[in-house]
């Protein structure tokens, strides 16, 4: 073991740099201890306590390099390490100066322009706090997340009402805000109809049908499936209607929802009666007109011509017993179930599967993004001779799969059972509606724009097969 002490008169580095240099040199092979420091009284004491002899004539403007080495042979390497560490300490490193992204909505609100719309799709148990951040910053919220407890929904909507903000959701899949589609939304032009929708795919069906009829929509406010329940009391529906009322170019407001709770229905009707904008209700449920019929009524009220809803291709009955409905849109599935069971007199073994249901989405993406699961079921049902007809939906628009026909058409081409499909989309959707319809029709499907019409055709095929 050997000590080496040298004084570098006039050399200077700040104490923090020197601590770092000391640490670097200490890690060099053969170095037992290293202390590079300005020769202040304190540091000279520290050096003395370490057993180094510092020459008495040093001042605090001198740098002391004190090294304890295993053998003198390590000295050159150790001194080289000191010089290297000193020069690298003063070298400028280009660290990243990029600003990290915000970690909460509250933080994002400080950076984003005022009056933003906040889209929340974190897991349901975490969605509430992000939504509160948004409302406290006076933003509207689109709550895409599901599994948000109803008491949290009530709290959010109460807070929103205090601030004149709107909570769309929870479980809100679709909204159009001044022409901008949020969530899964179709590309539509501005126009005379304003929508208030408790259902995402229900809203998309209406957008698609209106678009085909040449009627645009500037605002489609989502409200969440429970908004017209007794607990929630239609808070978002009323705010959304008030907003449409203020929008001069809205000639008619259409509310798409499950039938409301009786008290809420009264409240909403009263609210609507105070508005100058006429309000049409499209209620989803047994005994109610289907969405296509509701859209036709809207067109009639506006004095527009009701077009014929397009059909491409033709499916024909060829035996089998059951209707197999395989859906990605929850409202489309339930509309089909209601229409079909009314006509066929109960379930009777027919099935209407919603692949967007929680049972199929836990731990995986929504089927409008990831078609794998439905494709498997489709191939299976398509190979089953008991299948009388396959009924399925394809939903286009922002957020949905980039080219659903590309994976669906090859599977359909292999299927010999009749297939009826509804393609919910508009001409301006990024997926290209016409090309999608053609691809599915070429693969043998009968393709509709109206889910109700598609379902009735499927029912006819079942009935024909059973005769």
């Amino acid at each position, binding site marked *: 073991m050997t000590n080496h002490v040298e004084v570098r008169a006039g050399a200077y580095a*700040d104490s*923090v740099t020197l*601590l*770092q240099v000391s*640490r670097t040199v*200490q890690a060099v092979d053969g170095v037992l*201890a290293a202390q590079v420091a300005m020769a202040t009284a304190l540091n000279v004491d*520290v*050096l003395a*306590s*370490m057993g180094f002899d510092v020459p008495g004539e040093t001042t605090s403007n001198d740098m002391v390099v004190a090294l304890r080495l295993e053998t003198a042979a390590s000295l050159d390497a150790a001194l080289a390490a000191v010089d290297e560490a000193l020069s690298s*300490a003063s070298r400028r490193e280009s*660290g*990243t*100066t990029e600003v*990290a*992204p*915000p*970690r*909460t*909505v509250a*933080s*994002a*609100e400080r*950076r*984003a*322009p*005022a009056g*933003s*719309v*906040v*889209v*929340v*799709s*974190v897991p349901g*148990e*975490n969605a*509430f*706090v*992000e939504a*509160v951040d948004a409302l406290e910053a006076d933003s509207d919220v689109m709550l*895409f997340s599901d599994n948000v407890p109803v008491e*949290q929904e009530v*709290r959010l909507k109460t807070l929103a009402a205090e601030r004149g903000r709107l909570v769309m959701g929870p479980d809100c899949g679709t909204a159009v*805000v*001044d*022409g*901008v*589609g*949020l*969530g*899964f*939304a179709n590309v*539509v032009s*501005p126009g005379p109809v304003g929508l208030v929708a408790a259902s995402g795919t229900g809203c998309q069906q209406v957008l698609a049908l209106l678009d085909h009829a040449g009627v*645009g929509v*500037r605002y489609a406010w989502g409200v969440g499936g429970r908004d017209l329940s007794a607990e929630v009391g239609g808070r978002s529906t009323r705010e959304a209607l008030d907003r449409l009322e203020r929008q001069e170019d809205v000639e008619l407001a259409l509310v798409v929802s499950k039938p409301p709770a009786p008290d809420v229905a009264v409240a909403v009707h009263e609210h609507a009666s105070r508005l100058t904008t006429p309000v049409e209700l499209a209620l989803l449920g047994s005994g109610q007109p289907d969405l296509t019929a509701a859209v036709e009524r809207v067109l009639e009220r506006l004095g527009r011509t009701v077009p014929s809803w397009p059909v491409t291709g033709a499916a024909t009955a060829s035996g089998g017993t059951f209707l197999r409905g395989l859906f990605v849109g929850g409202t489309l599935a339930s509309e089909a179930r209601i229409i079909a069971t009314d006509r066929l007199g109960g379930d009777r073994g027919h099935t209407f599967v919603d692949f967007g249901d929680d049972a199929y989405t836990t731990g995986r993406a929504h089927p409008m993004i990831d078609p794998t699961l439905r494709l498997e079921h489709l191939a299976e049902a398509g190979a089953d001779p008991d299948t009388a007809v396959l009924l399925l939906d394809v939903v286009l628009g*922002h*957020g949905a799969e980039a080219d659903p026909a590309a994976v669906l058409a090859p599977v359909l081409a292999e299927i010999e059972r009749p297939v009826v499909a509804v393609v919910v989309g508009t001409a301006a959707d*990024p997926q290209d509606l016409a090309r999608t319809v053609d691809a599915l029709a070429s693969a043998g499907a009968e393709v509709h724009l109206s889910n109700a019409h598609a379902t009735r055709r499927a029912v006819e095929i079942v009935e024909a097969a059973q005769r």
Partner: protein
Amino acid sequence: MSAAMSTVPSVINVGADLLADAVSAQAVEVTRVDWQPPMPGTAGDLATVVGDPARAGANDRALQAVLGVTARLVDVLPASEAVGLQPGEFLHAGPPITWERASGPMRGALMGGAALEGLCASPEEAPTLFESGSGVSLAPCHSRSAVGPMAGVVTPSMWMFVLEDTATGRRTYCSLNEGLGKVLRYGAYGPEVLERLRWMSEVLGPLLQASVRATRDSVGPVDVTGILTQMLQMGDEAHNRNRAGTLMLMRDLAPAMVTSGGEATHVAEALRFIGGNDHFFLNLAMPACKLALDAARGIEGSSMVVAMARNGTDFGIQVAGTGDEWFTGPAQVAEGLYLGDYDRSDANPDIGDSAITETAGIGGFAMATAPAIVRLVGGSVPDALATTRRMHEITLGENPRWSVPVLEFQGTPTGIDVTRVCRTGILPQINTGMAGAVAGVGQVGAGLVTPPAEIFPLALSRLAERARDRVDD
């Protein structure tokens, strides 16, 4: 295209990136939140506390209360007069602690304090005294409106700065800083430590008292909050770097000290001592921060942290909406650089009330303004900027008086929100000195440390409980 005429200014997306992409594709600006799940087990309490109707208003009031305080140096007094400390009473840093659970540096400081007060003939005899417990009692500085750096031991004969909020007359207190190296607050208790403390009581304290009072009565009391404003623009973050603050304090007090009638040699000794101790101002920065934060204590529903403090064994926080309750977990060992040939195995876990500076938005929170000390952990200047920016993620607001020039004079991140710490998992960044683990060693290094993560869910849980109780009432 309708989007071109849209009045939608921008979208904030939290969750699936796909939804942000869909909006981007429509040529609308999207701010993407880098969301991650909250600390384990906190989702339910977060919903309760964030949903508490009292929270937003309470936090606003808490933040404004803190920002509204101006701390002025009005007096210097022995602890016996300042906080009424009786013989045998010891104040210490951090949450409450017993001799049995006290760490090496805490014991060392208590031993030195006992000897200083003449409770035993030498520090070495003090352990018997504390073990017996007869005639001695320990209490946190925070319980007596005081703060103490490192071990934070205060005994009746030690002199303390007295800071006052002019608007309310509230006061806070802190002992005088002894300098670096072998000092009581780092757990050293050798003869030179006690000799320095006696000189501070006999010479420095009275001189400071005379000059503080004369300054107060002539040009007005020293505005400590104002010095903090200036020093943050001069490379100090007021925890591990107090160089500019110390010199400004000396500038303000020196004329009155010179004319105080004290012996010239004593005045020279005092000025040399202050000027030679870059940390002298720390003991004013700390009580100034406490004075500000105490203004927010007891605001029901507020989730703002009003104290972070360590006793060398436990790290504790107190929250505006949960009274004087401490939420504690094990203190961590800092990451940093070591003096001499000390290493991590020599370091005691985190100790001291000085994290009150971070609680008030400076120290580690103002790292961007003191890039020199980011090298304590081998970091870079961009790291310093990133640290300050990161602290904005967990704080309620900014301090308009305390700004950081290099961040376009953005105010320092102020008011740690328990809910945001639990949501983001980002822990407060604290700059700190490191004491040796063995009593009597003194300082072994300096570095960066964070609180133990689990104390924030503990505090959150209590906030949730109180929110539920209020609804039930």
